[in-house]
């Protein structure tokens, strides 16, 4: 939230805190479903600012964390093939697959390159015409349009050696799956601001309508988050289920139709496997038939090892909000950011990594 003066900021924060404390007369559990929110909440010490009645839990909002082992194993298998260059965002590098990781493969000679933008992969493909360049297309609705636009740019450039390995996922179907399962009681949702910048307000309407859960599209400044908690607690106290948009400076009600059009041109909805949750219908994105030549899985044969999960790791339960990192016997002992066992500890946005780095917030580990 763009603030005019420090004094006004302090006054608003004090108002939010006072109102949250006044309105939260019973225990409420609010879920933030965005890894960037998780980090912002810990960094700003938001948990310590809230009364004991208000609990914040993290949901499945870290794209790296929810990517299952099978995807990592496929990426590793491709990286071992002759003449393949893997391009990826940096946070995928250290995620452990069943028996290896991209970082381990890189150390033994695989050509794996970190890119800032998927577009960087096209320059690499143009400079290496004899090689096949595979971009690891991971991320939610914020990131997926950038991969889709890159496929269109590859087509326009006439590149025949660029591919995507898609693991894109969609936020609303995951929320539906969590609420349907009812495994964790969620009284309100902090919705991801930058996903919403693309998809707008409409895809979230079902939260209030079908599940009676209030939700707020939320920005990333500490005041945004406190303001959103205040709005949720106010709705809960009034017994209202509604969708509020606290981040209108970036999220118009219709989102970004141009980005959605690019996304829809290249990708179609598909069932997708989420770590810790399983397969959620129509919660992922697959490359459409018209662009199949850019789809690594369709165009390039690969043999993938049998998937194995890491014994003892409770990342899946953490992602569903039913376990806290400290409930995992590996947390902080066998599993640390330096030597991560599970993806929730690898990604900077992972809940376990945030707990480890910033402390548990209000709870003692």
């Amino acid at each position: 939230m763009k603030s005019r003066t420090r004094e006004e900021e302090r006054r608003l924060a004090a108002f939010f805190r006072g109102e949250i404390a006044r309105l939260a007369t019973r225990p409420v559990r609010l879920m933030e479903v965005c890894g960037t929110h998780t980090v912002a909440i810990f960094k700003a010490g938001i948990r310590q600012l809230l009364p004991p009645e208000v609990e914040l839990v993290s949901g499945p909002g870290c794209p790296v964390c929810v990517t299952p082992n099978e995807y990592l194993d496929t990426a590793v298998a491709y990286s071992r093939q002759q003449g393949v260059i893997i391009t990826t965002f940096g946070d995928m590098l250290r995620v452990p697959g069943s028996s290896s990781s991209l970082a381990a493969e890189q150390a033994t000679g695989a050509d794996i390159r970190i890119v800032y933008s998927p577009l960087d992969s096209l320059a690499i493909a143009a400079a290496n015409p004899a090689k096949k360049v595979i971009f690891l297309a991971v991320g939610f609705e914020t990131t997926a349009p950038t991969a889709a636009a890159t496929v269109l740019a590859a087509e326009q450039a006439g590149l025949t050696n660029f591919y995507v390995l898609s693991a894109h996922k969609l936020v609303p179907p995951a929320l539906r799956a969590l609420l349907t399962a009812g495994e964790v009681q969620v009284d309100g949702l902090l919705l991801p601001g930058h996903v919403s910048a693309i998809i707008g307000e409409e895809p979230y309407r079902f939260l209030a309508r079908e599940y009676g859960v209030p939700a707020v599209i939320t920005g990333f400044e500490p005041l945004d988050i406190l303001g959103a908690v205040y709005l949720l607690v106010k709705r809960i106290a009034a017994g209202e289920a509604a969708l509020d948009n606290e981040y209108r400076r970036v999220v118009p009600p219709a989102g970004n139709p141009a980005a959605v059009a690019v996304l829809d041109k290249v990708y179609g909805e598909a069932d997708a496997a989420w770590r810790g949750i399983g397969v959620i219908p129509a919660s992922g994105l697959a490359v459409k038939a018209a662009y199949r030549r850019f789809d690594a899985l369709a165009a390039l044969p690969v043999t993938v090892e049998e998937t194995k999960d890491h014994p003892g790791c409770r990342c899946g339960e953490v992602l569903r909000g039913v376990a806290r990192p400290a409930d995992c016997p590996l947390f902080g002992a066998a599993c640390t950011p330096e030597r991560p066992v599970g993806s929730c500890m690898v990604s900077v946005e992972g809940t376990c990594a945030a707990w480890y780095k910033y402390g548990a917030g209000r709870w003692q580990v």
Partner: protein
Amino acid sequence: MCLAVPAKIVDRIDMMATVEVSGVTRQVSLMLLPGAKVGEYVLIHAGFAIQTVDEEEAKRTLELFEEMAAHEE
């Protein structure tokens, strides 16, 4: 992963814009925000402008909260 940073568009040629963040300039694609104009603040994610930052809305949100605060006091 959904982190995005606001930046000002200082130049535009076709679908590529030069943006400035804290005095540093870089090139970003406007494929996902074709209507973006020079002088506007946009959100940058993975080398693409993905949305316009509406300063007026920012003010309105803050004013709304301030009204709430004033009303409750």
